[in-house]
């Protein structure tokens, strides 16, 4: 028994000693029970310096969002651009038809079931239907080719964002189960310069797109933010709105977050999060009864629940968790 006890103790000691570092590694590499997010970012030909610069700026911002907010591993983060020399640290290569195809192949080897694959194309669009394209150096891949490339990601959720003019027909070509396709325009005939990509990226980079401020931006939230801000942009410039963005599956878009919440292994945090979750569910029920309740009763109960939720969040932070 004694002999037996030693290894047990040793093991427990090992666990005790190793726990902080091991847990840290575990969280950094793959959050418990969370999806992994992969990003393939392609920025196309600018044509004019102002557009080339804008595409690089948007690419840079999105790349950083993926790294810092979505916690995408470097190996799952690929940016192909018109001119890799513009940002050699971030840009993996030139955005040619071949390199984009190769990037999809490489990505397919890294993904696991349940992962999220985000593909973002930024640039000038052209063509119609399956021949719709975003202009890249050399021959442009068509929407049909992109559809073929993503066909292998059947066990992943794919979010495909085409932030380009005349991109509307991509939606019909790329749509499918487990896919959210976002296009900057409703049709291939909305060919004016598009503001969508800029606002889409800005919303993510500033976290302003996170409408309910829960720290987890959904695809739908980022889409809605961009649509709203694009409209404001046109209004400010007193121009007629000439682009109407589209999302292919709003239900899936509302359920899909770019980065799953990092779960904690700390039982105190787990317990607090569970308690807060229960309060949030209670709040949801209260809100559904709002119209039927006397206003004063509703407000009193609302405040009680919100204070309780805030106190739980504070408690989670106090023990080192992420609320």
């Amino acid at each position, binding site marked *: 028994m004694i002999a037996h006890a030693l290894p047990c103790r040793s093991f427990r000691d090992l666990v005790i000693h190793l726990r902080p570092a091991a847990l840290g590694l575990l969280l950094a590499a793959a959050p418990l029970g969370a999806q992994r997010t992969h990003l393939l970012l392609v920025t196309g030909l600018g044509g004019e310096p102002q557009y080339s610069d804008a595409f690089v700026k948007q690419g840079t911002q999105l790349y950083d969002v993926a790294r810092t907010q979505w916690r995408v591993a470097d190996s799952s983060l690929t940016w192909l651009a018109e001119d890799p020399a513009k940002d050699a640290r971030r840009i993996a290569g030139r955005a040619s038809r071949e390199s984009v195809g190769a990037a999809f192949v490489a990505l397919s080897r890294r993904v696991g079931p349940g992962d999220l694959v985000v593909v973002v194309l930024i640039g000038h669009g052209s063509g119609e239907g399956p021949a719709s394209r975003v202009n890249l150096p050399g021959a442009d891949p068509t929407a049909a080719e992109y559809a073929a490339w993503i066909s292998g990601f059947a066990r992943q959720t794919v979010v495909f964002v085409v932030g380009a003019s005349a991109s509307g027909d991509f939606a019909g070509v790329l749509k499918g189960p487990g896919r959210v396709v976002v296009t900057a325009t409703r049709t291939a005939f909305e060919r004016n310069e598009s503001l969508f990509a800029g606002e889409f990226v800005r919303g993510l980079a500033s976290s302003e797109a996170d409408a309910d*401020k829960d720290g987890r931006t959904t695809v739908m939230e980022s889409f809605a933010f961009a649509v709203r801000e694009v409209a404001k942009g046109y209004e400010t410039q007193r121009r007629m709105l000439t682009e109407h963005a589209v999302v292919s599956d709003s239900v899936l878009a509302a359920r899909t977050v770019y980065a799953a919440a990092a779960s904690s292994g700390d039982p105190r945090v787990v317990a607090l999060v569970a308690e807060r979750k229960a309060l949030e569910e209670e709040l949801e029920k209260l809100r559904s009864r709002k119209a039927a309740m006397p206003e004063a009763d509703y407000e009193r109960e609302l*405040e009680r629940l919100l204070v309780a939720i*805030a106190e739980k969040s504070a408690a989670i932070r106090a023990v080192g968790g992420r609320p």
Partner: protein
Amino acid sequence: MSGAMDASATGAMRTVALGMRLLTMVALIGIATAATNAVAGAQSAPDRTASDRTARVERAELALRRGDRALAERDAAALVAEYERRAGTWTARDHVAAGRAYLIVSSGDANAVRNALRAFDSGTAADSTFDEAALRASDLLLEKFVAPDATQGYESVLRRHPKNAWALLGTARVMEFTGKGDALAKAREAIAADARLAPAHLFIATLHLEAERNDSAQAAARRALAIDPEALDAWAVIGAVAWIAGDSAAFRAALVQAERVAAKPAAFYVTLSEAAARQRRYADAERFAARALELDPLSVPALGALGTNRLRTGDIAAGRAQIERAFAIDPFNLWHKNTLDLLDVLAGFRTVRMGRFEFVTSAREAEILLPYLSPLLEEAYEKLSARYDFRPQVPVRLEIYPRSADFSVRTVGLTGLGALGVSFGHLLAIDAPSARDPGTFNWGSTSWHELAHTFTLGLSDNRVPRWFSEGASVLEERRARAGWGALASPAYLAALKTGALRPVSQLNDGFVRPRTPAEVGLSYYHASLVCEMLEAEFGPKALGDMLRAWRDGLTNAEVFRRALKLDEAALDERFDTWVRARFADAHEADLPAGDADLEPLQREVTRAERAHDDTALVNLLERMIWIWPYDQAVHVKLAEAATRAGIAGKAVRERRAVIALGPSDVLAARVELARALLAAGDRAGARREVLAVLEGAPTYEKAQTLLLELRQPPPGARP
């Protein structure tokens, strides 16, 4: 330049109404007797000839002119029926007679108007040398606001007959309508071509009346009467001049003559209504229009005048009803169509009563502008009441238009007005700042300016001359805030130096008949200096005393004598000496920026930021907001500066402004508002705001933190 006090900038547009009536007179002059004779002769002939048809329609027109609409329509309808049965053999003159008959029966019948045009065109087709057909078609097109087509018709006649007086007069009317060209000179050409063209004299009379050259208007009207003693509109001009001068005997005499010409002289009262509106005496204008309508319930000009003036005095529902009726009768009337469109826009606006003011604007503009405008105008009301010892009735209605075209229609019935604001007394209207490009105008000083008119108009019973009211308004702008209001410009200094500015006794001409387009702008500032001098030299009550003197019906010269103890020449000399002394050492380089210039303010803001001078920063940023209130960054900066400077109320206002502007992150903006409310001591407001945020975003950390802070007892509170 700030706004016009009234719609006089639109003289061209307003005179069209009378001008249009004159169009129908061209062929009537001298025909009254001839028509009667012709018809009498024709009736005895077994075969009705072309001259018979012309005579018949002339008789119908005469009946209409004399106020017997039933007789006119009966005779015209008979001719129309005949035309519709067998027009194929009719001559060009007959077609024209039919067209004229169609116009008589066109009240409420758009097809009749189209048929009239078709008949005139058929006249031209039947005989291309018969100019009257083309001219009547052009007159009709101009009456229906199709000026380019009308011009083509007049020009086609003038190419064949360069001295055709009717075509020259038509061209003059087009010039007046479009505001392009010298309508007066062209009308004089028409008279040179035919001195007995009474409508040309009458047209000139209306131009003079519009420009407040009342003596000239009267003389031109009398020339028209010498040719056509039954020219009702000429008696109307004479009556209007008499009414403006307060000469009741002359007015009664003109009315008697008008009633001699027509038993129901509706047109006489319409002209009076228009003259009264031009004098900014809108209640009188309404009364005259109502009288015209009693005499002729189908008179479109009367309905239009009554409706327009009711809209000006704030009776929107009644005004709309009259305009709708007018439009039903004449669906080609662009003014009325525009006005009805505008009323549809107004129906979508929000009406907000705040203190002494009723604001009417879009929901978005209300959110953004009213937190600034309401306190500003309350302050203006208090200060102006004290200065003029007069309290206008409240509420004062201020309409704010996000589309300049709507503001223009509200003011003059047509788009394209250059002014920024207008005062009808208790009803003010301005462009919203969003209606113009950033840096175009200062909406604070413009609003103050227009409200000042409410005082000068009210105290003088709407009898103040335009130069004085504008001058006082610009002076009040300058007093309202540092940097507001018109200031000396290089152009002003140059005009002063070259003697291009008018003396006080003629200053009104600088507004109503400027020698150059730039003169109006210079006259605003010049008039403000006159008011400034009057206060400086004759005491702070001088302006009010003068307004009361005008209220009592005195002329300008009598006002100067009573209030200033000076005759016109002495006042002119006194002001000239004063203003030259004032600018003796002025240099262009020293002239300050205008009150809508953003760039210098932006530079000063940068300097204040570097100096960490929050008090100065607050002041500068507020000045920027009075020029362009839609820049979120300016509001955020002002909120932060106000917070640092301890001006919590302003910080709250600015945080609300940010939200009204629709920020990208509205929840974050609302949390900032809640913090500002808390800093201002409004814990309940802060709590409401933060709960509203958390209701939709229950895990929002910034809001949660504030909510928990709010649960703590306030500093200094007993446990």
